[in-house]
């Protein structure tokens, strides 16, 4: 089920919420069970075939985590943890990377191993990471929660199940145990409605508009000229931000309706002034996971500068691989790894850069890197980049000279003026506007704000005919 769908907004959400609150008054475990069943239904709605996998993953991890948390059989604890991590990595590896691995083996040694064309189970990247963190913390004796209902909710809670935020058990387990969670809380409802409305609008009105132009361009990379390529790539840069942050806003808002506070996942990333700053603002929960469970265990910055740089590079490589099984993602991860190393070296060396220049440089780097993230093949990415540097011709729309005749090399579904204005507005919002979380916490909730939220919801709901999935469902 998709947040921006009729079934979700008008049926699933109200039914689940009303019963949750009613059952919470009667007997809290009933409410938890109901929420768990509803979340599994939400997940299975796409394809019931995914359900056994998530249930097996949950049960295995819960059992291992419980064993580790009880601190028994000390001789075997590390081995059990290792088995648990390998189980998760193999699960993710098989479903996400098998074909990529086999393709490359075939290419390298000329073998003819058969591809399985495995359909990636939804959310597997997210729930696998969450559970690895749980296992590690159980081994460290940092988990005290043995209630399967709470654990099940931590893994499957529908607002964050499909595309994050990647929730740490420490952030939500205690909330699921709290009696207050099962009582109506108007502060949470008002905040939740506001940020959900903003997120829904971001997705339906903004991201999907840019998606049309980004998809048009990336489907015709060979004919892109200088201007076309910039329209295409800027459209994607904005689509990705509004799509993913829109999803995160909706997740935060929906969770608040159920009195659960999810962690912040975006904090105006395109305002970043260096690449480290960017990663403190973009997909924050992924950065947190990679730092806590990979970077620090590898030694972090405690083993000298060289090892620090290697560790930084490793986490960005993992980030690239996590996003997708393909060389384009590996290159994207590598680019960010190298940029982060340069950034760290630059700062330690005491170099300074004018803040505007720093911001422009950071944004442009991120923007160019997204080309690899979006392009279907390495060749496509290079073709687009060449076009962006004017190596595939510089062509101006003839409408600039003759008012009526739009003459891009291939037609976008809007005039040059519309494209330009929309992209500029999108950029302005991402650069200068308060972000949704700031609006939620800092803005007074008064009549104009209520009207604003209601209008966003109303407009978005009127566009539900064109339901589109979120980009991060693919990762």
């Amino acid at each position, binding site marked *: 089920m998709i947040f921006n769908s*009729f*079934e979700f907004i*008008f*049926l699933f959400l109200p039914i689940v919420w009303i019963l949750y609150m009613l059952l919470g008054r009667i007997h809290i475990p009933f409410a938890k069970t109901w929420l768990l069943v509803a979340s599994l239904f939400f997940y299975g709605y796409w394809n019931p075939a995914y359900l056994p996998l998530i249930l097996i993953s949950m049960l295995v991890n819960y059992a291992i985590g419980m064993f580790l948390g009880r601190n028994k059989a000390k001789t075997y604890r590390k081995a059990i943890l290792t088995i648990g991590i390998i189980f998760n990595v193999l699960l993710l590896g098989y479903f996400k990377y098998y074909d990529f691995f086999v393709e490359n083996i075939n290419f390298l040694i000329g073998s003819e191993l058969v591809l399985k064309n495995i359909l990636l189970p939804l959310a597997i990247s997210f729930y696998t990471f969450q559970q690895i963190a749980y296992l590690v913390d159980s081994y460290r004796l940092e988990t005290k929660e043995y209630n399967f209902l709470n654990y099940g909710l931590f893994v499957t809670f529908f607002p964050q199940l499909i595309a994050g935020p990647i929730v740490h058990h420490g952030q939500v387990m205690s909330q699921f145990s709290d009696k207050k969670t099962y009582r109506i809380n*108007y*502060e949470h*409802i*008002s*905040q939740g*409605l*506001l940020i959900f*409305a903003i997120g829904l609008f971001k997705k339906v009105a903004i991201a999907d508009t840019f998606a049309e132009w980004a998809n048009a361009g990336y489907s015709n990379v060979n004919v892109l000229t200088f201007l076309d390529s910039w329209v295409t790539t800027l459209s994607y840069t904005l689509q990705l931000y509004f799509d993913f942050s829109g999803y995160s806003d909706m997740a935060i808002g929906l969770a608040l309706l159920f009195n659960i506070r999810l962690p912040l996942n975006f904090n105006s990333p395109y305002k970043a002034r260096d690449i480290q700053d960017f990663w403190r603002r973009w997909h924050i929960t992924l950065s947190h996971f990679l730092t806590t469970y990979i970077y620090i265990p590898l030694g972090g910055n405690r083993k000298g500068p060289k090892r620090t740089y290697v560790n930084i590079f490793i986490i960005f490589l993992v980030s690239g691989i996590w996003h997708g099984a393909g060389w384009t993602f590996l290159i994207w991860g590598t680019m960010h790894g190298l940029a982060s190393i340069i950034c760290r070296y630059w700062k330690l060396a005491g170099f300074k850069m004018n803040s505007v220049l720093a911001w422009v440089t950071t944004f442009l780097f991120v923007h160019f890197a997204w080309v690899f993230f979006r392009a279907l093949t390495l060749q496509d990415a290079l073709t687009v980049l060449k076009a962006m540097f004017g190596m595939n011709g510089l062509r101006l729309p003839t409408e600039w000279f003759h008012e009526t005749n739009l003459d891009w090399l291939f037609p976008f579904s809007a005039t040059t003026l519309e494209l330009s204005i929309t992209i500029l507005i999108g950029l302005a919002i991402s650069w200068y506007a308060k972000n949704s979380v700031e609006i939620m916490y800092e803005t*007074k*909730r*008064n*009549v104009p*704000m*209520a*009207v604003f*939220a*209601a*209008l966003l*919801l*109303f*407009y978005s*709901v*009127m*566009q*539900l*005919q064109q339901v589109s999935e979120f980009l991060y469902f693919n990762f």
Partner: protein
Amino acid sequence: MNDRKFSLTVMAIFAILTLAVVTFNYWMDPLWNFSHAHEYNDVQLVTDEREQKTANQIYVPKTEDTLLLGSSRSTYIHHDGFKDWKVYNYSVANLSMREYYTMMDFAFEQNPDYERVILGVDFFKSSTQEAEAPRSIQNHVKRVTQPFYRAKNLLSFDLMKTSAQNLQMSADDEITEDRLYNREGDAFARKLSEEETLSDTEDKIKKFESTFYGKSYTYYPRYKEIMKKVHDLHPEAEKMVYTTPISSELFKSLVSTGLYEEYEIWLRDLVEVYGGVWNFMYPNSVTNDITNYYDGHHFYPEVGYYIASRMEQGDNAEAPEDFGVYVTPDTIDSHLKQVKKLVDELN
């Protein structure tokens, strides 16, 4: 403003606005998902005839005894042109001959009581180019049978715009487009001046010559075989075929691009499969008058009334005497001789 008030205000404004759009879209019903009719929704735009008519059969059950299938030309045949038969017109724009089968099958699923099926056939749709690709109504059926299809439709700005246009046209009671419907499924066309008609016809003839006739046309080898399958489907119902009358101007163009022989083959095949065909497609007093058409091949509803009357009443029809001939295997040769003579007279 406290949080409780804020939440309730948001929900109230949202609910009021949403309900307003839903109510308006429901009241206007531009997708024909409901049955209510009133003076402000009696002129309706076409959004997608396949979807509209397919949904209409599911959600507004049909009890007619006659099913009419054809292309946009046949949409202008009104149900009240038939005195004794109750006709449901399931004709849609740009119908491929490959669609008769699934559309008929679907219509019978919705109403198994049809006693007869009338097929409107177009000559230009008998070419390989037009008939080769398999076509089916199934995708539309799938779409209109999705859960909450009708409810989802009501929540739409795009549909609201269509509703508003329908309201305006219904209030004005004017036919301002080439095809607008009333609530009974009858199509109407804007009446053009003679000048506009001549210009549109000229354009259409050019299009037919460059797109459908001449070198673009080769008679589809499987035409007869597929029409036989259509004939054999639901054998409990009588099948009638009629040829859609094009203007003599367009007929001349067909002949001049060397397709007269194919026209004869097409007609013979249809007669052989169906045992008889109502032929309206030849030079006669109706087709010779260009003002009976708005573009040389779409006739006005007045002509539709003649066709309906001729098929139902035969010799007693309220139609020009020379308009419409029932051709059988016994009369096909003499009929084609007569048509050839009329064609020669045209030139």
